[in-house]
């Protein structure tokens, strides 16, 4: 289980920094930086720039995303913002608007 869970019904506004996995089911506005993975579940709303080792998205994000390892947009995901990651997958049914930088 993730070290940090922003559960459904919880709203965070501000800057969240972590050494551990972060699971978002609620709402986050601001900025999120973690050394580990971030998972944004279906139903979550994120308006934040995110930096993480990897990112998996099933919910909605508006913000720029940087991942050391990979970004996965699952079915139902909605991302408006730029992605910088060495690997990116966009599942059927995910929507995405923004630029991709795969660091080539």
């Amino acid at each position, binding site marked *: 289980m993730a070290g940090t*869970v922003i*559960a*459904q019904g*919880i709203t*965070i506004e501000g800057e969240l*920094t*972590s050494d551990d996995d972060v699971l978002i089911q609620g709402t986050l506005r601001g900025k999120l930086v973690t050394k580990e993975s971030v998972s944004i579940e279906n139903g979550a709303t994120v308006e934040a720039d995110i930096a993480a080792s990897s990112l998996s998205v099933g919910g909605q994000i508006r913000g720029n995303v940087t991942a050391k390892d990979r970004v996965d947009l699952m079915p139902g995901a909605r991302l408006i913002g730029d992605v910088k990651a060495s690997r990116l997958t966009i599942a059927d049914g995910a929507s995405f608007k923004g630029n991709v930088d795969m660091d080539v």
Partner: protein
Amino acid sequence: MARASSASQGNSAVLGKGTRLRGRIGGDGDLRVEGSIAGEVAVKGQLVLAEGGEIVADVQAGSVVVEGALEGDITATDAVAIRASARVSGALKGSSISIEEGASVSGRIEAEFDMPPELGGKGSR
């Protein structure tokens, strides 16, 4: 210790060890803080500040359990429990307040209760 699962549909948020928040956190559910928060905390459920956790903020919650360090005022609609490992500086306000031996607390304590009429009180404050 039993995990309070009073919140509906598993609405239990955790700010893990090594996680720091500068800003505001609020919502309907419970919140467990093992990391640190500077800013503002307002949850409707139970707030648990675990040992090793740190909050520098005014705190509003349904009920509050403090095992870590807290600098700021606590306002609870229900009970406030200060455990032995806690360090608290700030005003405590709740329907009932308990402080375990070993805890360090500096600040005002305001428990809401009705004064008996013979003491001339119609209520607290």
